[in-house]
């Protein structure tokens, strides 16, 4: 109810004195953050699930470090990148489902009757995703450190890792928003999730690309952008400051963000068409 009130207040404010883009974004961002915080049950499970997998696979796959050429003798150092990406994928679903709910309940249609800018709604909605992205990135990093992960790149590397992780979460959240705007239902957004997960499995998530035995799998992992997101994060843990890995990691994250936001903007225009 309070959430709806925020939107109504925004509409009233906008119509009476013409709220700026920043004011619109902040009001909607506040609403998105509040909604996220209030859905603890829905937020905690996706946050914890990657940690459970990390804890199990970090031990179960540790014999992989005996493979000649494996880049570290602690498999958890290698695997720690995975929860960040899994968590980002869950963020995309949370953001998408939240926006889809606004579409399904008619909230977006009511906003269409106000002078609200579509871009402000997009940016504001991402506020909730940003909160989850920041919290889970910190939790994953602390959990990793507590279970024996060591960052070769040191404290500076940890900060860059957090920055890249949050950027990736933001990019996936934008993708979730686009899916919501394109399909208009939470069910459709959730149905896409397995496809996102497939991209994670068909990447260098469990072994370095040069150690993947099946050539077709290695090819797929090489053309899969998720491999570069993982390798960017992983490089800070295992290698130190690897400009190429970081460049590719940040590059693909930014590319995903720009493309998703562009598509979302276009889809939002259609959704908010003032008739």
């Amino acid at each position, binding site marked *: 109810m309070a959430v709806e009130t925020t939107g109504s207040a925004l509409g009233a404010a906008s119509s009476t004195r013409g709220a700026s883009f920043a004011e619109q974004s902040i009001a909607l961002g506040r609403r998105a953050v509040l909604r996220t915080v209030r859905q603890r049950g829905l937020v905690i499970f996706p946050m914890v699930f990657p940690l459970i997998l990390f804890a199990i696979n970090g031990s179960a796959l540790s014999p992989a470090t005996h493979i000649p050429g494996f880049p570290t003798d602690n498999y958890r150092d290698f695997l720690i990148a995975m929860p960040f990406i899994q968590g980002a994928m869950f963020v995309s679903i949370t953001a998408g489902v939240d926006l889809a709910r606004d579409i399904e309940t008619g909230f977006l249609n009511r906003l269409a009757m106000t002078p609200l800018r579509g871009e402000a709604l997009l940016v504001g909605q991402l506020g909730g995703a940003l909160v989850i992205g920041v919290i889970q990135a910190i939790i994953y990093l602390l959990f990793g450190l507590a279970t024996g992960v060591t960052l070769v790149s040191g404290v500076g590397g940890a900060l860059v890792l957090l920055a890249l992780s949050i950027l990736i979460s933001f990019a996936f959240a934008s993708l979730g928003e686009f899916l919501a705007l394109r399909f208009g239902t939470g069910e459709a957004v959730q149905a896409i999730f397995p496809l996102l997960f497939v991209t994670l499995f068909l990447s260098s998530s*469990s072994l370095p690309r040069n150690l993947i035995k099946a050539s077709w799998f290695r090819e797929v992992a090489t053309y899969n952008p998720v491999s570069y997101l993982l390798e960017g994060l992983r490089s800070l843990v295992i290698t130190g400051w690897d400009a190429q890995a970081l460049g590719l990691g940040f590059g693909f994250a930014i590319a995903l963000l720009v493309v998703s936001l562009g598509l979302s903007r276009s889809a939002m225009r259609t959704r908010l068409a003032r008739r």
Partner: protein
Amino acid sequence: MKRFLSVVQGVAWRSIHNTIVNPAVLVPSIVFPLFFLIAFAGGLSRIGDVPNFHYPPGYTSFQFVFVFLQSAAFGGVFTGFAVARDFDSGFARRLMLSAPRRGGIIVGYTVGALLRWVLTGTVVTIAALIAGMNVYGSGAQLTGLLALGVALNLVSALWACGLAMFLRTEQAGALIQMPVFVLLFLAPVYVPLSLLTGWIHTVASFNPVTPVLEAGRGLLAGSPVKVAIAFAALAAAGLVLAVFARRGLMSAERAG
């Protein structure tokens, strides 16, 4: 008995019919095990080169057994989701009003779970054979592997149906799924038990899924191990969970 069987038949038919005609239900139950097979047997095949890893049929076969048994377990779990959905939609209450022998409802759902898994298991097996899986076991041994899958499917279906009947909401999905998922992954999934170290070795040693997995791998390789222990563990779990499911049904009856 005839009335009991008519309930079983009706519920099972509806369960499999809903699965086949609803792509949103059918596709994930087939696609997920295939992804696991591709990711594990394809992406992790180098694990088979780890020193002291010895499984003559090869890594694809090693992983096939896990994915095959996992699909059996998840066939039961997905049926639990359907039961929860039936309660959310109000169908389950109408079903209980009309069923002359309500025990047949549980049996019907478990038969539905089995039929659903027959489909998934067949697809996974064909995919593994196409991927070059080696089979060294005899016909009788492969029948044993199939029987392990059937028993695991039954056990997980009883768990899932029981819990769904206790909670009677679709939101129980995570609670139904998570223990099964965790138990499966706390077994020696990627390497044999002897190669695991640390806490995961200790947990896997006590995990009842471990002998089931090891027996399945032994049967596929033509050198059976721990088969009696595996079936005994599944029989014990089946008995306990049958009581659990029955109590779940009684709880649903009391709730009206």
